[in-house]
């Protein structure tokens, strides 16, 4: 199935619209009433931490717990990153070594 150029443009346009709705909506709704709304202030304080938790799970959502070869690389690499970041607290070091370890595991050990 091939789409025509104008059909591709329409798909790009609706995807842009949908994405921008999700990004601009809070600013359109809450723009005028912040400061008075303690509930939104509370959510603004708490949500970032919860959202990072959601993102971690989102990134690992396709890990298949039925086979060890599909769990172990993620499990080992994430544990390693948690440990080394807890000890050294060097962002680039943790990300660099963690990613290198993961690539090594999926390319050479759990092929």
């Amino acid at each position, binding site marked *: 199935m091939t789409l025509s150029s104008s059909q*591709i443009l329409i798909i790009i346009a609706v995807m842009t619209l*949908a994405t921008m709705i999700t990004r601009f909506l*809070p600013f359109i709704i809450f723009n005028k009433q912040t400061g008075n709304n303690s509930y939104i202030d509370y959510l603004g304080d708490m949500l970032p931490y919860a959202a990072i*938790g959601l993102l*971690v799970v989102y990134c690992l959502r396709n890990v298949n717990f039925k086979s060890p070869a599909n769990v172990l*690389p993620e499990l080992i690499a994430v544990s390693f990153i948690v440990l080394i970041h807890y000890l050294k607290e060097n962002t680039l070091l943790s990300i660099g070594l963690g990613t290198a370890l993961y690539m090594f595991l999926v390319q050479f050990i759990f092929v």
Partner: protein
Amino acid sequence: MNEKIKALKAAFPHTLPVFTGFIFLGIAYGILMSSQGFSIIWSILMSLFVYAGSAQYLGITFLTSSFNPIYAFLMTLMVNARHIFYGISMLDKFKEAGKLKPFLIFGQCDETFSIIHAAKAPEGVDKNWFMFFITLLNYIYWALGTALGGLLSSVISFNTKGLDFVLTALFVVIFVGQWKKVENRKPALIGLLSSIGCLIIFGPGSFIIPAMVTILVCLMLVRKKVTEVKKTKDLIIDDRGM
């Protein structure tokens, strides 16, 4: 002008993990689009306008199946619904960004959000320009990666398997950094456990929106408790005072 260069210099190191991740994920996206027969122009347009990695990967299926813009619209809305949380989190931070604000909001992808939330502008650096350059650099990396992927699709041969893990690593690192502060642990744990619970129940394809609802409900419940505890404490203090 000097103020902007200072902000750019301060912002750049924070974007390095995203540079790696976006260049390679962007290349992968560009290659994937080319392999489906789409010219580089379409890939770049997608990256410049939609600018949302997971939705763009999903978007390849909208472009290769029968024409259905309503389905594409609703699916994109669902996959990107998590951005609503980022917006609510940034209401206060973007308040004084003035003319930079629309671009800051436009560029709130997962990675930009997590860095802007975690990184603080150093002393003497304008925080709005600092946030602007983090957003702009990430945006450029993504477009650049996409263009490279489209151009190099036939040349690239080294084994990049597993490189996309760099973004997972970035989020894990930010999570651990937040965990060190005790008062952040409650919302962090709510986010993590709600998401895991919903992932198990709803599966990887449709857990995001149930997870968002669960997070909101849990935060609401916890807040009630916190305010109640505060009230009792106040009462106790009042009693002592008397």
